[in-house]
């Protein structure tokens, strides 16, 4: 009967079903490297209790991840991140970015008359702490 974790109470939004938002949250954790290949997902019971969700909702969210091949069920032991899940996700996300987001960004760049040089220079200077490689930022 611990009181821990309530501060991180999630705010569910009303536009998508909660199981879907739960799935997205796990995907974000895999992409960010919080969960890596072979890591166990928190148990259905724990997630349900922590967020006061019906266990079936949690199970449904996890099942989506199983269907997508990102998570595998091990009998009696729980759910685990599949080997290569992050690589797979990155591939999907990169493709999605290139197909869906990049055309919009590219159109904006063109509309504003920005050059690749301008943009890359800004990317470089916005990360002052990153190790400066030879030949970069030499103006």
């Amino acid at each position, binding site marked *: 009967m*611990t009181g821990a974790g309530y501060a991180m109470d999630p705010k569910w939004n*009303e536009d998508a079903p909660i199981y879907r938002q739960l799935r997205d949250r796990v995907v974000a954790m895999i992409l960010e490297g919080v969960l890596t290949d072979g890591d166990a997902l928190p148990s259905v019971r724990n997630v*349900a*209790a922590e967020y*006061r969700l*019906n266990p*079936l909702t949690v199970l449904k969210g996890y099942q989506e991840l199983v269907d997508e091949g990102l998570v595998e069920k091990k009998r009696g032991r729980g759910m685990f991140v599949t080997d290569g899940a992050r690589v797979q996700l990155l591939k999907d996300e990169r493709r999605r970015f290139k197909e869906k987001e990049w055309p919009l960004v590219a159109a904006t760049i063109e509309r504003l008359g920005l050059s690749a040089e301008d943009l890359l220079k800004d990317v470089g200077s916005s990360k002052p702490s990153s190790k400066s490689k030879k030949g970069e930022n030499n103006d």
Partner: protein
Amino acid sequence: MTSLVSARNVSKNFGSFRAVDDVSFDIEKGRIMGLIGPNGAGKTTLLKAVLGLTDCQGSLSVLGLDPFRQRKELMKNICFIADVAVLPRWIKVSQLLDFLQSVHPNFSRERAEELLAQTHIKKTSKVRELSKGMVTQLHLSIITAIDAKLLVLDEPTIGLDIIFRKEFYGNLLSDYFDEERTIIITTHQVEEIENLLTDVMFINDGRIVLDSPMDELSDRYVELMAGPDSAEQARQFKPIYERDVFGKKVMTFEGVAREQLKGLGDLRTPDIADLFVAKVKGEAA
């Protein structure tokens, strides 16, 4: 399908007052049913009938038993937390455990002690020395230690602060609930429990106004936030309820496809509190 609770045309009169009016419903195993209604709607009377604490007209079966006539048998497999404190104030926690161990065949003292060890409740304390939140914790601990098939909670968190309330539901899910167990719960703090319900039932004036699995609500009900220009057009689809929010009209529709309302404003699934108001006020109008 075999139902855990099955009610057919159940009614209950107090003199000329009809507290429960011709109610029929089923509850399956492994569900968490929220019974929502205003004060005096008949919730507690209905729960009492389910628990066998009052007789009623019509047919009612709980775990295959007639609750009023076979209450002794039924009590082995159901437990109950009422909105009024029922634990005697003079009893010590250790005496309470002794008592339950001696009278209840499905009570596990070991489990109760395990659960109590996670709280600040001392076994030497008397109920009267505990805070309201601790009494509820104690109550939940002993009830969780009973291997019951049906748990009935009537306003279990009334008067508790938000931390205790959250903890109560967290513990209920982590320590008590599994797919073999079933819970019926009433509360006025609907928004706190709506995500943990599998089913919801609205009761008003002794009648069931709505009885639905939670995941079907989004198919049947939709809320539209319409600007002044589209409100008139939206009204053609006959909303069951309409209210004003910041100069916009919020309309609740039943059985109207989302595609038909597309373009008239923002659409969303109403939350339980809003839907309850829409159903109850909409019917009265």
